[in-house]
């Protein structure tokens, strides 16, 4: 019994070392799940079935789920569009100019593009605080230019600004968070 427990502990040490030195986050989470499953076994061998049950239910079922969910959320690039022409069109043969640009951009960072249309124009002030939109696309009808509005704080915006440098019809606007009322 003791030998098995010690073996599992050595295994745990190995897993924790590989967690510390691993660079891929998804792999880290899988390691973590197996880590807590093994530690639940150890709790049981330590004659603590209650703790083992808690660890199995939480540590190796629910927590990895939260991790995976948050990692997948961190791979999204959310675009809110106020444009109703085919700038952001995404069909098999023809893709809109803006869509190509954004696709190019998100591929560079290995992000997943997520576009949704917002019919009514929301007020811009404070929108980034309220919801997790990364980019808002608006169109000025008179001059036919598109505005890509994003947060100044985001490091991704620098790259986007670089991509549209030579394009007159597309302008990247960086919005600074205004000081909130204290």
């Amino acid at each position, binding site marked *: 019994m003791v030998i098995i427990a010690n073996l599992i502990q050595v295994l745990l040490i190995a897993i924790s070392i590989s967690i510390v030195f691993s660079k891929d986050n998804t792999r880290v989470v899988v390691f973590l799940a197996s880590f807590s499953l093994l530690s639940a076994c150890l709790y049981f061998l330590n004659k603590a079935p209650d703790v083992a049950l808690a660890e199995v239910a939480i540590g190796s079922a629910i927590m990895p789920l939260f991790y995976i969910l948050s990692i997948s959320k961190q791979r999204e690039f959310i675009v809110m569009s106020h444009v109703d022409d085919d700038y952001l069109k995404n069909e098999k043969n023809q893709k809109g100019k803006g869509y190509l640009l954004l696709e190019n951009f998100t591929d560079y960072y290995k992000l997943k593009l997520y576009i949704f249309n917002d019919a009514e124009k929301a007020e811009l002030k404070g929108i980034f*605080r309220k919801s997790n939109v990364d980019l808002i696309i608006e169109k000025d009808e008179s001059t036919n230019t598109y505005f890509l509005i994003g*947060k100044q*704080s985001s490091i991704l915006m620098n790259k986007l600004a670089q991509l549209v440098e030579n394009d007159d019809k597309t302008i990247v606007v960086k919005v600074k*968070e205004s*000081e909130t*009322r*204290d």
Partner: protein
Amino acid sequence: MEYIPLYLIFIPIISSMIIYLFNLRIINYLIFITQATISVLMIKYFLFINKNPQFASITIGGWDKRIGIELKNDVYSIAFIFLTIFIWTIVSIYCFDKRKNDAKFLFFLLFLEGAFLALLQTNDLFNLFVLIEIISIISTILIIFKKDGFAVRAGLYYLLFNSIGSIFYLLGMIIIYNIFGTLNIDVIKHHIHLIDNDLIIHAAFILMMSAIGVKSALFPVFTWLPKAHGAAPSSISALLSGLIVKSGLYVMIKVDHLFNLYTFKEYFFILGFFSAIIGILFALSQKDIKQILAYHTISQIGIILMGLSTINQITFYGGLYHIINHALFKSLLFLGAGMIIRTYNIRRVTEIRGVFKTMPLTSIFIIVGMLSITGAPFFNGFISKSLIVHGLKEQTFIYFLFFIINIGTATSFIKFSQIFFGKSKLKGQATINEKIALFILSIACITLGLHFNYFNQYLFHVESPVVILDLYNIMTYFITIIIGFILYQTIIKKDYLVFKKIRHMHITFETTNYLLVLYIFTMILWSFKAL
């Protein structure tokens, strides 16, 4: 009657639930009813305890002391409870205008009060851990209440770093538990001198102290504090700086009394000095109005630590008294700063001008706070600083170090006071509630300064034997101010490169953790002295 400690904890918690569940504007006034109820209960309990001291502790559930959880009130906890209720009342008056429709904010605020009151009274090591964690979680949520980028990143930093710190507390607790088989502080205190193995005792002490150091922002591990204070709403900054940081110091007093180790007294004195100096150095280089105040919190905590970690009784009570005073004037300053920021919409000290013209009443209150923090005669900061200095007078070198700290504080507040001068076309937007809150706080600052003897006798049962208000101390203060003014004009105003470097210094999260490890390691090295 003897269950009042429990009512004190659960009345705020239940009323916070009611506020959250109903989410009505009228129900939100419950916050004041709650404050009134618990203050009345507390006064009753205080009188009751003075007559029957045997009821000062109750074991919840009526179990054996070694098995169940005990709540115990002593001199310190009663003083802290009064302070807590007072500050919370002030903060709820201050923020009520803005938050009266915001049931969630009031929910977290009241819940935090309940948890904090529980922390002050509990006499159980593990219960202490749970409550420390609750307090860090609620304060995180309150820090990120504005939901902007600054706040979110500061909140995450605060949450993770504090949780890592409190794991060390848990480790220390594990060692203690395995020796004594109980978690009750009183029982452990009874038996701790029987253990002759220094290594175990020192290890437990070091581990617990490292968690407390994180919680109360001591010298190497203070980096979370300015971030959190800068990002939080002003009322929360006042709470954080006035009380939540003090929770670390309170636990420290408790743990220190539990272990009763003389080895570390000197170590914490030096650490306190370093915290004070570093805090002032950073405060001098900052330009953000809230960051200056936040770094001053670090330096004041250093002063308190210097007071608490001496064997001299008067100095110890000076440190204790300074905790209360600091809570009063620092919340006054933070609340005032919040009003200034809201009026001007900028936070840079160099750009805010003419506050005296726009908000005359508010600036008078802020000046009271500034006089207190620099230790002007007749204000409360003066009393506690003199009490701390009194015990150190014989040691000239230490007295000199203290003098340096005072000069630094004076200099940086002379820099801060530049906001009052000049002209401004803005209109003040202070509401009457906010003015009332500041007024009460400044009155408290002055009263505690004038009638300190009475308070000391009544709360701590100590006499203050020293004649504090002598000419020598008053002269010292004016000399400090003059030197500070000269320093400001010659050095600080020019904004040398050194200060710019300090201002833009970033300590990343992993480095902070490394500093925590170093902090533990220095304690280990220090403990070899005794082994």
